[in-house]
């Protein structure tokens, strides 16, 4: 609406006289609500900082690089959960990124138009399933399969390969860092797919048609026309998915094994920041224990904030870039 133009306001009709006060009030209420959304985010940060302060006062910056976690002597360090969060998210992205891009390419470039909607709806169903369901499925369905068939094969296969043998060593527990990464991959897959579909769709049809016209194959059109065009947006989609994977709680809590240690093997149980909080917060006795968990939450919030902010900026940039071009 051209509200900034210097037009004389028409006189209010008699039926709307009483709206004058409401008009002012309505604007004020909506403005307040808008500011409240901002205050919410700042409030979350302040509350976390306040809650975490005793832990940082007691352990200092050493908290970030200490891997001990001993509630009995009240000595806490965040390294093991941070390591677990990073590794599980990394595994998830390693699996979900190529899969998601593949599905997005299939949906935008290859798939017959009639199948496009049903398939994308089915993939989006994955996003609708609550995370606790993924956790149960991972623990009761996926973990036994991994333990009995997949992991023994992996261990046998890589036992003689230097480097990889340490990465995939130890008894097959079924649950552990690798399982958590796998579940996270399934969970972020629909997010990557839908955002990637959106950015792929921004590639101008004229360019694609021109490429097909000079005899390029579907793959070449995708690789040399669509992908360069959508590069920034794809990176944004990846970071958005990473942000989601970093903070995911319930699914990981079920399958990660909840062991406070840093193990070289991906098959060993570990823990993540969110799983540690979910498991231990209600049982945390003593100020220092609670504060250590709050400090973990603060670290998680800070990391996801940076990742998500970067993702949004990239996607915004991608949108503007395509908006400027014809």
């Amino acid at each position, binding site marked *: *609406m051209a509200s*900034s133009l210097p037009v004389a306001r*028409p006189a*209010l009709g008699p039926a*709307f006289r009483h709206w004058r006060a409401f*008009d002012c009030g*309505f*604007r004020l209420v*909506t*403005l307040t*609500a*808008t500011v*409240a*959304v*901002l205050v*919410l*985010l700042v409030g*979350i940060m302040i*509350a*976390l900082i306040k809650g975490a302060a005793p832990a940082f006062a007691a352990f200092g910056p050493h908290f970030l690089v200490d891997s001990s976690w001993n509630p009995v002597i009240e000595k806490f360090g965040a390294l093991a959960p941070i390591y677990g969060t990073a590794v599980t998210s990394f595994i998830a992205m390693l699996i979900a990124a190529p*899969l998601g891009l593949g*599905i997005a*390419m*299939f*949906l935008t470039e*290859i798939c017959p138009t009639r199948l496009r909607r049903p*398939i994308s*709806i089915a*993939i*989006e*169903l*994955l996003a*609708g399933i*609550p995370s*606790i*369901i993924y*956790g*149960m499925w991972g623990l*009761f369905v996926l973990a036994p399969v991994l333990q009995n068939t997949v992991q023994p094969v992996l261990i046998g296969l890589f036992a003689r390969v230097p480097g990889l043998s340490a990465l995939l060593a130890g008894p097959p527990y079924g649950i552990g860092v690798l399982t958590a990464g796998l579940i996270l991959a399934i969970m972020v897959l629909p997010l990557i*797919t839908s955002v990637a579909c959106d950015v792929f769709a921004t590639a101008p049809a004229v360019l694609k048609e021109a490429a097909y016209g000079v005899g390029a*194959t579907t793959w070449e059109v*995708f*690789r040399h026309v669509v992908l360069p065009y959508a590069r920034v947006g794809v990176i944004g989609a990846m970071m*958005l998915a990473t942000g989601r994977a970093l*903070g995911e*709680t*319930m699914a990981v809590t*079920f399958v990660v094994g909840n062991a406070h240690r840093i193990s070289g093997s991906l098959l060993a149980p570990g823990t993540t920041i*969110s799983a540690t909080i*979910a498991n231990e*917060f*209600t049982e945390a006795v003593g100020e220092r224990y609670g504060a250590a*968990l709050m400090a973990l*939450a603060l670290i*998680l919030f800070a990391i*996801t*904030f940076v990742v*998500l*902010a970067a993702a*949004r900026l990239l996607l915004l940039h991608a949108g503007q870039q395509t908006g400027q071009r014809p």
Partner: protein
Amino acid sequence: MKRYRARRRRNAVAVSVCAGATLLGLGWVILILLALLREGRSGMSLAVFTEMTPPPGAAGGLLNAIVGSLMMTALAVALGTPLGIAAATYLAEYGRHGRLRHVVRFFNDILLSAPSIVIGLFIYEILVAPLGHFSGYAGACALALIVVPVVVRTTEDMLLLVPDPLREAAAALGLPRAAVITRIAYRAAGTGMLTGVLLAIARISGETAPLLFTALNNQFISVDMGSPMASLPAVIFQFALSPYKEWQALAWTGALIITLAVLALNVTTRTIASARSRK
């Protein structure tokens, strides 16, 4: 010719890899839904909806959890929706060209994907710890904080879809700004705003992490929101990780109920949206 064949081959490989990825994705959906149906269906009976959660080793239902979930979800929507709609109204109507809009949109998008467990801890810090006890109100507040960004985002998008000439015509008739918004823009964007609220309900009905430290859990039925309250996700969490067979079976049934509810909400949202676009 040789090069041409190599290019064709590479293309065939790429296309089949993409098709394979899609099949894998679809396979996962089917596997998860099948497992839910297989494990959850056997426990589905009237008792689930009429009896309390049992002690270990006994039969029972999920009545208190279902009631708790419904009450907290309802209150969360009642708290979060007006705030979200009001904020979105400012963003789309009053402050469309202001700097505040960019800042709020940006942070709202971050809130949208922020870890829900952090929101649970935030409510614990400001509500549970000062009051000294867990409560259904705290759980509803945590869920409301998840509703807000979803509603803000969808409502703003829907209001922006309302054509400006509609607003200009209304303003030219002498309608005050607030009337233009509430009587014209809201009415034109109504179904879209409704889908936003439904999406928000779907999102919070499975949320577990923010309830763990706010509503906690309750073995018995309670309609008093001032005390700890059971919820379906929290009961599933507790029962699924227990060693008792009866509890695990109930957890699967609860999981099936939640998934069916969420899927039903998603289908409803889609039907509304597609009916709207056909109009």
